[in-house]
């Protein structure tokens, strides 16, 4: 036993970040889960779109991993890893995609739009940039109530950086001096549109000083770098620093949604350094440095597959929402619902 513990400690010290293995496990779960989603989608088991974060697991995991109880996360469509790492149970996403009436949105909204209030996670709307001021408002309210030590984080893509709502929201966070982090993943395709038709500045991080933010660049395929930079930004904001803008570089290793074959991505682009698969890259590092022995790695994968299968089986057994049993009331003040006979 002593020998094993010593060996474990020695391995741990080889890790490029103290939370590397923990983060990798969330990446692995996300990858396995999203591959399952894709397969269910292709088998016609999912109504509506499937949007996955393949290629962005390192960035996304780092977005969720450093948040604590009382913090706020406003995730977007490629943030399964962030949601999971910050405490959303896997059954929530499974139920949402499979249309279970026991899911958090009960069939009223689908796929990636769910929230998880008990885990500090907001339910996104599709309009990009719209969740930024909502995070600011949550943080402002916490500040007004005298709470301390909290932080809010939201994610965006390089496309979402170009909306008017984003501009207003980013500025508002700085004006209100709230502890705020925005992590932008430039995955080089906003649906099908390339960077040259999205922005004309040299690098998106150059916008940071213009908003009164501290800016950071990171290689989004390098888990250790993501943990270091995003973890650092979260700490800086939590400790009273100005708002933080992190810009990560990756390639989206899937379509915009699973309906999209991404045939517009030029093959030569897939050979770029920033096009590497962050999950494969982290797994290779774990093997190379002996952080986990192959047997343990295999066991982790088997555990993750079992978690995913269990969630899918559970959600598939549950009933779908029923129109004539639905409570068609959009107000919490029931007596103020307008009625037309």
């Amino acid at each position, binding site marked *: 036993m002593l020998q094993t513990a010593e060996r474990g400690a020695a391995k741990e010290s080889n890790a490029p970040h103290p939370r590397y293995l923990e983060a990798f496990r969330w990446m692995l779960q996300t990858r396995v889960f999203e591959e399952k989603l894709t397969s269910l989608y292709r088998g016609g088991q999912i109504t509506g779109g499937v949007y996955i974060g393949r290629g962005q697991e390192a960035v996304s995991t780092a977005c969720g991993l450093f948040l604590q109880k009382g913090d706020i996360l406003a995730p977007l469509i490629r943030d399964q890893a962030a949601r999971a790492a910050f405490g959303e149970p896997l059954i929530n996403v499974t139920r949402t995609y499979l249309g279970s009436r026991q899911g958090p949105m009960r069939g009223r909204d689908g796929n990636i739009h769910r*929230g998880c209030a008990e885990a500090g996670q907001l339910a996104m*709307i599709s309009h990009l940039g719209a969740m930024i001021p909502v995070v600011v408002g949550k943080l402002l309210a916490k500040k*007004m109530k005298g709470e301390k030590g909290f932080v809010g984080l939201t994610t965006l893509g390089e496309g979402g950086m170009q909306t008017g709502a984003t501009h*207003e929201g980013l500025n508002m966070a700085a004006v209100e001096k709230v502890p705020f982090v925005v992590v932008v993943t430039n995955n080089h395709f906003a649906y099908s549109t390339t960077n040259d038709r999205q922005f004309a500045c040299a690098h998106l991080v150059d916008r940071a000083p213009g908003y009164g933010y501290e800016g950071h660049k990171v290689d989004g395929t390098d888990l250790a770098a993501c943990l270091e930079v995003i973890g650092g930004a979260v700490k800086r904001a939590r400790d009273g620093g100005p708002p933080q803008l992190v810009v990560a570089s990756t390639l989206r290793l899937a379509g915009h949604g699973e309906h999209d074959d991404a045939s517009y991505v030029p093959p030569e682009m897939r050979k770029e350094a920033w096009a590497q698969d962050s999950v494969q890259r982290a797994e290779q590092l774990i093997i190379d440095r002996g952080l986990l022995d192959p047997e343990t790695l295999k066991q982790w994968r088997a555990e993750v597959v079992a978690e995913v299968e269990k969630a899918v089986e559970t959600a598939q057994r549950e009933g779908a929402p029923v129109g004539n049993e639905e409570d068609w*009331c959009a107000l*919490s*003040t029931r007596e*103020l619902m307008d009625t037309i006979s």
Partner: protein
Amino acid sequence: MSVTYLEAIREAQARLLREDERVFIYGQDIAGKFGGAFKATKGLAEQFPGRVLNTPISEDAMVGTAIGAAMEGMRPIVEMQFADFSSIALNQLLNNAGTQYWRTQTSCPITVRLPSGGTKGSGPFHSQSMEGIYSHYPGLVVVAPATVEDAYTMLIDAVAIDDPVIYCEHKYLYYHLKADALPKDGLPIGKARVVRPGRDLSIVTYSAMVHEALAVAQQFNADGIEIEVVDLRSLKPLDTDTVLASVARTGRLLCVGEAFPWGGATAEVIARVATEGFHLLDAAPARINAKDTPIPYHPNLWTEHRPNAKTIAAKSRQILAE
């Protein structure tokens, strides 16, 4: 002592700030000694430090921030400088605030004050009445007080509601309307009021047009014609029962609204009366709205663009002759 419509709005906010620590006011130019483009918050920032906050010119983010704060337990009041500028915040209001409870079962108690309607010389971008747009979408409560008393109690009630409320205050009434004192209580949101009883014609209206309708009713009274005037007070929910009861008494209906003519509150009232109270009607129902052009700047054009006592009287005669 007398109180104007504008003072009633300021006094309601002062009371809300005093009695409920969750309340704060968020808007452009509302803080400091300035106290807002119309002075609806004058003196409040000094009286309630840190709770009346100036914002950047960012209507979308103002409402987004209020939504977040509301979901975190606060009761924000957002002042739009003019209702017209709330178009910038439509996305937050319609897609975020309006869908929040249905999607997540989280209440979103924000109150958004919209200085609405026309005044002379204000032109196309400082005169709009937007209640029709907000009423069309699910998840919002929409009110439009026509009296000093309602301006006061309905703002207090709006902030107490656990849902987003669009509070349309009429700029023309700010200084024109006076009451002797602030009321202790009022009719709840969602209830219309018969402000003048009659037996020959129902004029169903709201906001500043209530006063135009009352002027017409007074004028017709000299000829022995009794016009009943119904103030809707809330556009959503719409108090169809009070409207139908009025039409049951008079058999004739004219709806008047200051908003643009396509769709909107007047069309909704007529649709409901036609579907639920067809048998009550002795003549075809009619409506008067603003003209289907942007709102003109020059007073000579503006007074013709919106419904007024003259056009309401002419239309009333037409319905009564049927």
